């Protein structure tokens, strides 16, 4: 029996047991519009690719990681020094986490600027925003797990900020820390969030997000006319292009891990004083710097509480973008959303840089 015959036989065996004709049909008919903004479609796929990398490397790290105050740092040190390719897995996991958040932001803004959030894609947008929030929480919870000095104090700062949220702040902070302060209970709790609660929720949302994308197809920007849009078959034409982008990302991750291995630092010491200039991860820097700029009291309100309330309202307004950012006639709202997008990107970029520099 030749290889072709064997393949055909195996395919037929599968076909008899799993009726994949519907899937094949869907893939075969799926197309991707080709226009000046097509390149932005790749960012969604790249986010998915990096998420897959996170799951794979995360599972491998979990084989050795021990989530206790006395063993967390040592187990990561063991992974970095003794486990075969442990350094590579851990560095790729850390670099990929940061790249994933960056790419997710790029993907979100590409959706804003191409106005892909419009009807009937409101739910796609909402699941995407929820996924971005989950990614940020993934980053926040994962940052503490090596239990080193910087991550310990950054988590203290982060949970202190949460504690200042109006009404529910202290309860949220206590829930996150598992007590009054960051300690062993926080580490166990963050580990549970990071490897169980967040992945399960994220997988469900990713599934729903992809399902919605399949259902509605790829959005075409409003400035492209209703007719004459060229189409590219998703499989294999677009998929092969995505594969090229994923390989490029893989090479970049490998280079970052080999040339700039992710540092471990010193073990956390809760009794030591906080290192000078402690700050959260880069994706929280803009908010952190903004809170620093707000005076301690604004009229009768505490500055920090006001700031957190402001961020909450801003996030809510942003999440509800499809509901206020579209209009039936004219393009006034579209221009407003584009303007808001430019302001948001400028603010995040400028304040992240300022938060890093100052």
């Amino acid at each position, binding site marked *: 029996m030749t290889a072709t015959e064997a393949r055909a036989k195996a395919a037929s065996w599968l076909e008899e047991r799993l009726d994949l004709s519907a899937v094949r049909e869907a893939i075969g008919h799926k197309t991707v519009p080709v226009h000046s903004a097509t390149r932005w479609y790749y960012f969604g796929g790249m986010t998915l690719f990096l998420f897959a990398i996170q799951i794979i490397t995360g599972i491998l790290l979990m084989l050795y990681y021990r989530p206790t105050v006395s063993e967390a740092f040592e187990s990561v040190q063991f992974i970095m020094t003794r486990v075969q390719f442990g350094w590579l897995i851990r560095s790729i996991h850390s670099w990929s986490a940061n790249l994933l958040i960056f790419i997710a932001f790029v993907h979100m803004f590409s959706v804003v600027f191409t106005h892909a959030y419009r009807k009937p894609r409101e739910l796609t947008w909402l699941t995407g925003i929820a996924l971005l929030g989950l990614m940020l929480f993934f980053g926040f919870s994962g940052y503490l797990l090596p239990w080193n000095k910087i991550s310990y104090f950054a988590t203290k700062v982060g949970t202190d900020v949460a504690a200042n949220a109006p009404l529910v702040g202290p309860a949220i902070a206590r829930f996150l820390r598992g007590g009054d302060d960051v300690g062993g209970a926080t580490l166990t709790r963050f580990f549970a969030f990071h490897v169980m609660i967040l992945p399960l929720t994220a997988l469900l949302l990713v599934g729903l997000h992809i399902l919605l994308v399949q259902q*509605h*197809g790829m959005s*075409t920007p409003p400035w492209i006319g209703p007719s004459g849009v060229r189409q590219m078959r998703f499989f294999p*034409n677009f998929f*092969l292009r995505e*594969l090229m982008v994923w390989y*490029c990302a893989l090479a970049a991750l490998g*280079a970052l891990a080999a*040339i700039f291995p992710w540092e471990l630092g*010193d073990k956390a010491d809760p009794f030591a004083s906080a290192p000078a200039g402690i700050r959260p991860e880069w994706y929280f820097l803009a908010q952190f710097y903004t809170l620093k700029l707000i005076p301690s009291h604004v009229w009768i309100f505490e500055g920090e509480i006001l700031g957190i309330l402001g961020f909450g309202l801003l996030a809510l307004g942003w999440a509800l973008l499809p509901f206020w950012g579209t209009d039936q006639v004219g393009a006034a709202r579209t221009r407003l959303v584009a303007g808001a997008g430019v302001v948001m990107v400028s603010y995040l970029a400028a304040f992240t840089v300022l938060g890093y520099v100052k």
Partner: protein
Amino acid sequence: MRAPFIALLLAPLGLLAQQAAKNSCLNCHSALDGEAQRPALLIKNDVHTTNGLGCADCHGGDPASDDPGVAMNPAKGFIGKPARTAIPKLCARCHSDPNFMRKFRPQQRVDQFELYQTSVHGKRLAEGDENVATCIDCHSVHEIRAVKDPAAPVYPLHLPETCARCHADSKKMAKYGIPTNQFAEYQTSVHWNALKVRGDLSAPTCASCHGNHGAKPPQVESVAAVCGSCHVLFAQLYQKSVHEPIFSAASGGGGCIVCHSNHGIHQPSTAMLEGPKAVCSQCHDAGTPGAKTAVEMAGWLDGLDSALKHSESVLAEADKAGMEVSEAQAKLSDGRDDLVKARLALHAFQPVDMKKPIDAGMAVASETLHAGQAALHEKDVRRMGLAISVVFIGITIFAIWALIRRLEPKGGLPRDASTTPR
């Protein structure tokens, strides 16, 4: 109606209080010029003033009277400016009285005068030598501050200069025939560096070795004990060493100072063991077994020191390259401990005792060097692995691109005007 009546009743008490607080000494001396005015200006910072004592408590007289004839009447106990020979006893009236001193500070020492009488200063003063230091020469007069006051002349940071005011004065010291270079030498010492540069208040000053009120040079037999009060382990080893009886018999100061000197104690190094400035060569001629042992011990110390430094630099290079070497860096501190132990063991002057920490330190240096070199090698392997994988990824990307070109010949993508989901 009731208030004026109470005021009238309390008036005599007010007058009494005014009378008690009156200090005519201060009133008159404040109005005088020059030296006569000086005490009145200085006294406000004096620890005695802040504790409620006045001029008359030392000088006698009647401060309640504005008439100088009455205020400074010897019949009222006025003694004027006390003679220098009388000063220690005058201060001791209160400072040797535990019942009186307890009122101000329950734990205040009261043995200063007793100690002073045993000091070189006290003995000479008793013989009538007014040139020697009395209480006021160190503590100042009329502006006497508590020892813990950073502005006090006897505060640890200022004490060397206070002693040097007399002991660095060649004219003053001429008649005693003692050197005046102690302060200059002390300024070159590790102790001065600790005190003045690092601001370490526990660093030894003159009083730490000589005593303060009972100040005198330590005797030859007690030098090791004086140094050993801080350098405990060094002193213990030295006491058991072959050098102890020999150095104790040395004339002109023995013990630790034979090798380390006294006031100008410099940072010890292996140059003390070998080379042109070797202190061992003062007694052990070149080529003798003692000199050979000293050279051998210097070689061990230098060898371990440079081995540890080499390991440290290799680990630092690996660390800078992003390699995880914190475990080895922590281990390196064990090696540094061994070097300190070896330097300590040297004071027993038994090469066998010293070899133990040297060997342990060399083992640490070798182990950490190996870890650093392995990390650097690993770094190179990673870069090579990266280069190879990038080549393979590049080939794969090229292959995919070629496949796309095959799937989409010349004409490019088909044009499809059908309804596109929007």
